[in-house]
């Protein structure tokens, strides 16, 4: 029987499919990690955004072969235990989500943005976030929450 081993949120997971299977459906149906959403199947809405070695990717068009040996991070993996990430905290402070369906993807794109750019400008946010569509119209709140998260991160001592 086919099987493939991938690393999700720091944990090795073996799934009963070959490496041509699409990451999104493996996450959702094999690993029951349903925080990563299906929106278009064509990398045009961003609802399935995950991180591959820290870089944003679209799980709906990513075969397992592209992530074998790499670290995949999903929405289920950005909090530290019970402590929400600065972005998640800011998302609650700003009450960003409405229906909430796109927000996993928004948070993952924002996570990648802040990791590479701790103090993004409006233009940086436009560029990093324009691939994540929100039909409820939360863009202005997302922008504020990213800036707020940058403040939270700056005020938090980094443990190393």
């Amino acid at each position, binding site marked *: 029987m086919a099987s493939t081993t991938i690393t999700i949120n720091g944990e090795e997971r073996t799934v009963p499919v070959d490496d041509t299977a699409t990451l999104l*459906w493996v996450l959702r149906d094999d690993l029951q990690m349903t925080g990563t959403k299906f929106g*278009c199947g064509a990398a045009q809405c961003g609802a399935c955004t995950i991180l591959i070695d820290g870089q944003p990717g679209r799980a709906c068009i990513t075969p397992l072969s592209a992530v074998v040996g790499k670290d995949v991070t999903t929405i289920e993996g950005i909090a530290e235990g019970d402590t929400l990430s600065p972005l998640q905290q800011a998302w609650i402070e700003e009450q960003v989500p409405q229906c909430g*369906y*796109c927000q996993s993807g928004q948070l993952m794109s924002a996570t990648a943005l802040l990791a590479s750019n701790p103090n993004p400008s409006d233009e940086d946010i436009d*560029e990093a976030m324009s691939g994540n569509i929100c039909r409820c*119209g939360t*863009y202005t709140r997302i922008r504020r929450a990213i800036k707020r998260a940058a403040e939270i991160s700056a005020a938090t001592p980094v443990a190393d």
Partner: protein
Amino acid sequence: MRFGVAMMATRSEEGDSMTQLTDTRLSRRGLIQSAVAAGGLMIVWNAREAVAMQASTPVATPVPAPEGRVTGYDPPGTFTFDAVPQNVDSYLKVNEDGSITLATGKVEFGQGIRTGFMQLAAEELSVPVETITTIMGETDKVPFDIGTFGSLSTQYTGPVIRGAAATMREWLKELGATELGVAVEEVDVENGEVFVIADTAKRVDYATLAAGKTAMRDIAADVPLKDPSTYTIVGQPIHRVDVPSKVNGTMIFGIDSQIEGMVYGKLIRPPALGATLVSIDFSAAEAMEGVLGTYVDGDFAGLIAERYEQAEAAAKAVVAEWTEVNTGITHENVHDLIVRTADEGINWDGEEGPGDPDSVLATLKNPIKNVFKTPYVNHMPIEPKNAVVSVTEDGAEVWTSTQSPFDVRTYVATELGLPVDAVIVHAQAPGGAFGSKIIPRAEVEAARLSKHFGKPVRILWRREEEFQYAQYRPATYAEISTGLDENGRVAAWKYDLYYGGYYPENATVRTDSASDWSANIAEIYSVPEVSTWLYAGQSPLPPFYWRVNGAAANSFAREVTLNQLAEEAGLDPVTFRVNHLQENPRLLAVLNKAVESAGWTPGVGSTGQGYGVAVAIDANSFVAEVVKVSVDEETGAVTIHEVHAAVDPGLLVNPSAATRQVEGSIVLSTSPALYEAIEFENGKVTNNMIGLYGPTNMGTSPREITVNFISDPTQPMGGLGEPAVAPMPGAIANAIYDAIGVYLYELPMRPENILAAIAERDGATPTA
């Protein structure tokens, strides 16, 4: 406001008939019985009353003809609607442990009604918000409800919940007074306890009063409500209870339902609307890995497979031949079709009937005649339609994203030939709706496959399926004739609106999706001699309600024309509106507030920057929006720098959630104002992917939005899901005019349309 008046009349009649609770009613209600059996105190209200309250709004009747095919593009089947079940009621309950349960058929999809309902109940009961547990949308646990749409929830369910909570409070006071040995006038409530006013040490908590009791009362129509000036919970910007699970990935949307033994179904659909199946060959698909079965019945063809990707791949391997569709109708000529096939029209001027603008217009020196067009628009919720249905010997269970769980129950039961009680619908959080999740589609499809194959089946629409087979805000074509009298006031107003109102395969069903009383200018501005007619024409794509129905198209046409009249009168657009709003003080107040917020400084001539204003009334809320834009004359690109909204929704339940509803309405409305249009020919949508369709994103939506509320807590609660959608297209068009001196009369106002208008302004021949 005639709908509001009608609602109140119905409410009062129902209230009078609800003074007693008979054993018959009780015995019929399994739902209530099971809740009662658990013990505690319960306030119930009648489904008929709740529906009557909701149904007397202009938008509350998307459930179409009582018999016959509801929608020609749905899987075939004859649906008969059980109008309103009389045997299921809703309830508010104080449980024996003092916790409180509120059950409602409404659905939360991020608009904040779960939290708002909790606030309304907690306020009247004087308990902390977190004491209240809500059950929503589970058809075996909650009262019948017609559906969550039309900005109805806070407007019409809100007052019922508040009344139920107040009734419960008065009941608790009676029980508490007895327990404490005083008269009921001598007690009051606070923090979940009844206490003696003259001796506050004497108190008893709600749990004690409910313990060991199993009792029920009807809602009291004339129950005293708290004085709004004493509110401590209603009106507070508390955080929504649904938000935490939406930032950590744990919220369960319809698509996230995990059902044991579930397989994926996929339908083989026609390449164009209206095509019928000629032949189908499943042999290649049947040989593919994971494929468990194929099915065809008339034009309904599908298959099931173990995994989503297997179902997708197999569906692509099916060879199907469909009839050619050659209607010649495209997005470019559809307005001609709609006008040509329009019905006799509905007058929309209220009890007085239409005025006689023609005779006045004939006397005017400079009458204006404008034509406005809008295109078909997709709802495009980010979560496509989906459902899991498990049909068993005993009945069926449905897990779905829906705005209308009880319609799902009826449709699925009808499809399966089951009584409605044999179908249980679990309404999960919808990932966006906007009107797209009212008519059950994926649920009926999954039910057919589940029944045939004897397994739980999930149907999940591809994005291309959403674009091609869903429903659409219909195209509109509006004509306005108007002009100024010698005092510089609007002398007469003739408005004829044509819209795609009926789908050919089901011509008897009429969707008044462009109708909205905001079409009638006299409802808003003081204008004499008004006539407003709405004409439903043939729609080549299935038309349906899209957040705020026709108000956006109506507001666009009206507000742009008003700007032209203001210019002719030599007045600032705000001043001109103020002059015509003297009889509408609530709208006047929000207009002034928005203008103040924006620092209204319109440019003169072609400055490249401009301000625009528009107003609307919808769902008993009053809205004004001022937009500041810049237009790049080289590229035609419009940037919306600021939007300043002022909204008067009457009593405001949660300013935080309300602010976000207004912000979201503004952003969503910007998208079809500037970018979106369904392109199609011969029944086939040609821009059937997000990249081709081009909705707003982070970079193209308004940069800053400021929301101001004017709230008089003694006014009834207005709706807020939709009203702020309406003014945006007109406000943007007026701001573009202020910036570059050209008016656009057609949506969307894409860069190429703006460049063409600039070329026309400059005297060049516009290029296509």
